[in-house]
């Protein structure tokens, strides 16, 4: 089960993921990212309610890395629980995606960098 919510704040968009990302719903995540990429240069992903992410879910983030860079989109994930963070970490994705512990720290990435 995966629920994706979208909140627009100032000039950044927050994508809130709740539940689990697996092979069956990674397409939804892909579509959601695709949809908000166009008008936004600053994307925040709230992963605090994310319980689990499978390799298919990681593959979705991975597939956007190049595009984020090409379009100079800033993408920050925050609030991951230890287990989910560990999945990012083991794969090495934390070296390519900015992952912050809290929303405040994530916002600092946008506005203080």
């Amino acid at each position: 089960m995966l629920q994706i919510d979208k909140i627009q704040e100032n000039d950044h968009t927050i994508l809130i993921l709740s539940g689990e990302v697996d092979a069956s719903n990674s397409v939804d995540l892909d579509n959601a990212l695709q949809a908000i990429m166009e008008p936004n240069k600053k994307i925040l992903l709230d992963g605090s309610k994310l319980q689990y992410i499978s390799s298919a879910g990681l593959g979705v983030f991975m597939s956007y890395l190049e595009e984020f860079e090409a379009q100079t989109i800033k993408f920050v994930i925050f609030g991951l629980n230890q287990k989910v963070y560990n999945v990012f970490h083991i794969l090495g994705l934390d070296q390519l995606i900015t992952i912050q512990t809290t929303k405040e720290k994530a916002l600092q990435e946008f506005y203080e960098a």
Partner: protein
Amino acid sequence: MLKILNLNIGRIALLLAIVTWLALLFVDLVRLFGVINQMDTGFSPEITWILQTLFFIMVFLFFHNDIKKNEGISFLDLIWKGVSTGLFAAGITVLVRFFYFLLGNSRLSTDPLLQNFFYHVNFGLSTIFLISVTLIWRQLILYQKDKNVVQQWQAFEIIMLVSMFFVFFNQTTFNYSFIFGLFFIYIFGIILSVNLKWIPYLTFKEKWKSILYLVLILLATGFLFFHTVTQTEQATVVVSLTENLFLLGLFGFVFIYALFSFLVTLFNLPTSSVFEQKLTEAINFQKLSQSIQPGQSENEVLDILMDSCMSAAYVDAAWLELSPLGENPTVIHQRFISEEDRAEVEEQLKNAKPFKDFLIKVEPKPFEHLSGKINHPFYKSALIIPLRVNKEVLGHIYLLKEVKDGFNKEMINIISTFVGQASISVENHRLLSEAIKNERYKEELEIAQRVQRSLLPSVLHKNECFDIAGLSEAADEVGGDYYETFQFTQDRFAIIIGDVSGKGTSAAFNMSQMKGVFHTLVQQDLSPSTFLSQANGALGRCLEKNHFITTTYYVLDTSTKSIIYSRAGHCPTLYYSALQNTCAYLKVDGLGLGILRNSQYSKFIKEKTIQYQPGDIMLMYTDGIVEAKNGEGEEFGFENLQEVLKQNYTLSPENLVKKIMEKVYEFIGTDTMPDDDYSLLIVKFLK
């Protein structure tokens, strides 16, 4: 064996019948000779009666046996047998009468011996005719028999048997007891004669034929009876053979049943076509309901359907237009109508209400069918029924009649039933084809499984310094986990474990690519970090955009007791140190293969070296193990794995693999199905 016996009974009965008849003739002639010459021949009438009864029984046995051999022949053929016997018997009798006519008033014409001879011939022929026809009637009466009828018939047979012996007790003909017996037999015959279930199954033509046959039997019976009666009066008969309760009873029974059959068949003639129609409908329905046999096509079912619909409503012209979604309509099974006429009528239907609306309207249709009148020089009424398969309209059946209001409710009901049944048949056929196709896919998948199994090494390289064991189980038929070893020299080995993102077939394909990359690069004896960078370069070109592979590559040197490794995003290796008796995950930074598909990748790959001690264990695994979930959604986890290794470090790699799998399965419980591939590769250092 039984057959031979049956044949013999028939032959023996025939032989005995002839012998008894000859004996009867001889006895009677001798007695007559005695009477004429006033001599006592010493033959009592009982001898005649015994011979007569024996003759009856033998003839009965012969025909009883004969009719058994002919089981399954049609009613008409059966009756024809009776007719032919009757015609033969009557024919001979006519010839005898003609012979006497020719003799005129000569001496020979009054010769009692000759008269007696012909009397015996007539008796024998009548008996043969009556018994054979009685047995034929038996077949007809017992058609679609129930217990009651069988019992009635058995009772009748017993009565007839008793009537054979009647003569022993009562010699006076036509006294009260004789007439009572005769009356009784006739009443019983009438009761039996209501069993005429065979008649409705005759076609119209067959009914006419059977009427003819029955008339012939009635005539033959009447003529033989008449002849018998007149002859008995004329001839000098010492012991009467024909004034016998059995024989006269049979005359009555044969006549009564023939008469009943004749009348009922006659009265059935007008309704015969309706019965035939219903029977055809039932047969058609059965044909339609039988699922399509292998080798048959939907077309054949539709063919039967069209025939059934046409005959059910006496339709003058019909066709079936198939219009699958998104395809041009095609007309098939066009019947009794030219292409131009069909196009003309169809054009008219498509432009005139109410057919227009009905045809244009896509699901759900307001009615199941539509009938109405049309303006056409020949055709006055039309019926359109949609043919559905899987709730989709496959096409429309068009039925035309030359009369107005040609389709009544009953016809439409029957046609709807036919159409429904045909739809089910076609649907079943499609489901079956699909099932066969799926079966084929399954077979293909099994082949893929076998091929993939062969991609995993059956033997792992090792030397005397370490032992190694591995295992891989796929959640689906095929999986994406991979491990392999390679031996450079006596002391140096390469070990790799990998996990392709996703699972099932796509993962399996990527896994085989991974194997190819491994075997290409391993030959070059690269350092682990270079190996992974080059593997990333190779795989980055062939992996899909959102797919990646995690792997750890080890170079093991037993001469220096060192392990150099690099990790490409794969689960950290669990390492048991015998010296410290601790279990820890080996930490090193890395990045999954295919995540970064440019030269930047190598910057993220680090290399580490560790020294091993005898007794140390290196446990390599895929994420399926640590992420294995139980019914409550909890994961097996890194800690559990650590714990299992810590408690079982004494085991050999092979047993350790078994132990860990056992613990994993114990954890997930029997109710949950594994949803990821599990792989384990364990190295235990011996010295």
